[in-house]
């Protein structure tokens, strides 16, 4: 190898190390601090912990009511994502397949949600949710997440994909006397797998990490999600940050594990979600 090529290679690797360093340092700091006492953390903030002491985690588990909050997160995220896939795929199918004008008008109305941020609606939305007696219920948060926040993009992505599915398949099924509804779920829906994966990933990230909606619509501690528990504890633990950091780790751990396992899919999902948005 020529001298110039070698030098270029070395400087490229130095660049990689620099990028990794900038990205990783805050996360490294977060994780190692969770194993330290405040004294140890103050004395050597970036040093490895003297021992793998999980007592901070034990305290945090208790203080943030972890299992209950985690359960609430799982309920809200999974039910929302299932409902989104269920309602949006049917709606997108109709929009993609029917030539009737009414459905095009409906689609245009759904698209308004892509242009107007939902935050404009939150004050009256609060009235509507309390009017429906859904304040402080998981169902209230789920309905807001599904219909107010995430529906338009989900329909938009699904519709784009359904356009690429050949129509001959369904026509053959109709000929055989398959009803529209059954035909959709038995024949079309299984073909949508790639875009369903995208939609599930994007919505899971968005709903799991959403703080504003639970903050507005859930008040009682037994209904609270992980982020609300973190928020609740930041005051009391402000001087004792080595006990607070485990809460940050534990509230994000599920999604980080999800990302590490499904990395390729997650990134493909983000890319697929960007196609002509």
């Amino acid at each position: 190898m020529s001298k110039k090529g070698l030098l270029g290679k070395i400087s490229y690797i130095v660049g990689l190390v620099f990028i990794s360093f900038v990205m990783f340092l805050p996360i490294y700091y977060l994780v190692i601090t969770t194993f330290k006492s405040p004294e140890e953390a103050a004395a050597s903030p970036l040093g490895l912990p003297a021992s793998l002491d999980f007592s901070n985690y034990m305290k945090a588990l208790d203080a943030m009511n972890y299992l209950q909050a985690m359960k609430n997160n799982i309920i809200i995220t999974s039910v929302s994502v299932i409902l989104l896939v269920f309602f949006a795929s049917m709606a997108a199918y109709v929009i993609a397949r029917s030539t009737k004008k009414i459905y095009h008008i409906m689609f245009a109305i759904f698209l308004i949600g892509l242009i107007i941020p939902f935050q404009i609606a939150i004050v009256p939305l609060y009235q509507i949710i309390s009017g429906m007696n859904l304040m402080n219920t998981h169902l209230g948060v789920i309905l807001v997440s599904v219909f107010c926040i995430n529906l338009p993009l989900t329909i938009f992505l699904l519709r784009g994909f359904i356009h690429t599915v050949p129509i001959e398949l369904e026509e053959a099924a109709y000929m055989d006397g398959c009803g529209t509804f059954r035909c959709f779920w038995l024949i079309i829906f299984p073909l949508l797998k790639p875009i369903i994966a995208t939609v599930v990933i994007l919505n899971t990230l968005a709903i799991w990490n959403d703080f504003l909606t639970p903050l507005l619509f859930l008040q009682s501690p037994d209904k609270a999600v992980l982020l609300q528990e973190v928020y609740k504890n930041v005051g009391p633990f402000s001087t004792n940050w080595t006990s607070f950091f485990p809460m940050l780790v534990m509230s994000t751990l599920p999604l980080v594990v999800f990302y590490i396992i499904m990395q390729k899919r997650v990134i493909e999902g983000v890319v697929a979600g960007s196609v002509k948005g």
Partner: protein
Amino acid sequence: MYNKQRERVFMLMILPAFIGFIVLFIAPTAMSFFYSLTNWSVYNPDIKFVGLDNYKMLFEDVKTVSAIKTTLQYAILITIFQNIIAILLAVYLNKKMVAVNFVKSLVFLPAVLSILVVGFLFQYIMTSADYGLLNNIIQFFGGDPVNWLGDSKIAIYSVLVTQVWQWAGWSMVIYIANLKSIDTALYEAAEIDGAGKIRTFFSVTLPLLYPAVSFNLLMSLIGGMKVFDVIFSMTKGGPGYATETIMTTLIREGFNSGRNAYASALAVVFFIAVFILSRIVITFLNKWERKLS
């Protein structure tokens, strides 16, 4: 006859989504417009029509005007920085190497964390208290500590840096996907023509990145306008009201102070600001596209 039955089923399949959307998005959005013209608040249960009074109040309120300015400034800056850094990273990391793949996954990682958590983490890193990591590092290299979050002149930029750190990877993967679709023959042609690396970037790469640029610019712009969680966790709008944004003001006025009509007027202003800004960006993008073809 057969088709008629099909149309009826079609209607049943789309209606649940449509009704939900009307009730929980379109109706409250329209109500925001309506309430912004009234005097509705928790202290004032009989609603009266007051014309544009809320808007006048809003633009006479120094705090609110400052929040609108801060938000616009934040959104524009994050759009610029996040995308420049994401494009540079994408070009740098668009290689087939195991080590590069690892770095790419690492750059994307913060995007799966919640904004609130990233905000709390950086609040501790940037704090001017003794244990503040960033100031410790600066002092280790002989510099003077900086009051990252307590100085009203720089607090918003400190917040901005954390968000660029968190979201650059998200834009980057979109740019990389776009880069992969560029025909390598174009680069060979540029090399034969004797174009240098920088020249090739501006005359081959950047124009062909048009689809990713247009998507990413709009996404970071709208995301920047909505900034809330990170302010909530890092500065709470302070010091003073230096980092108050439209969303933090809207939540405070609408929910903590109970000034519903005022908050609705701010929501409408928010919508108009988002609309105008994205129009400007789209016009600019269209001009660029026309120049390319």
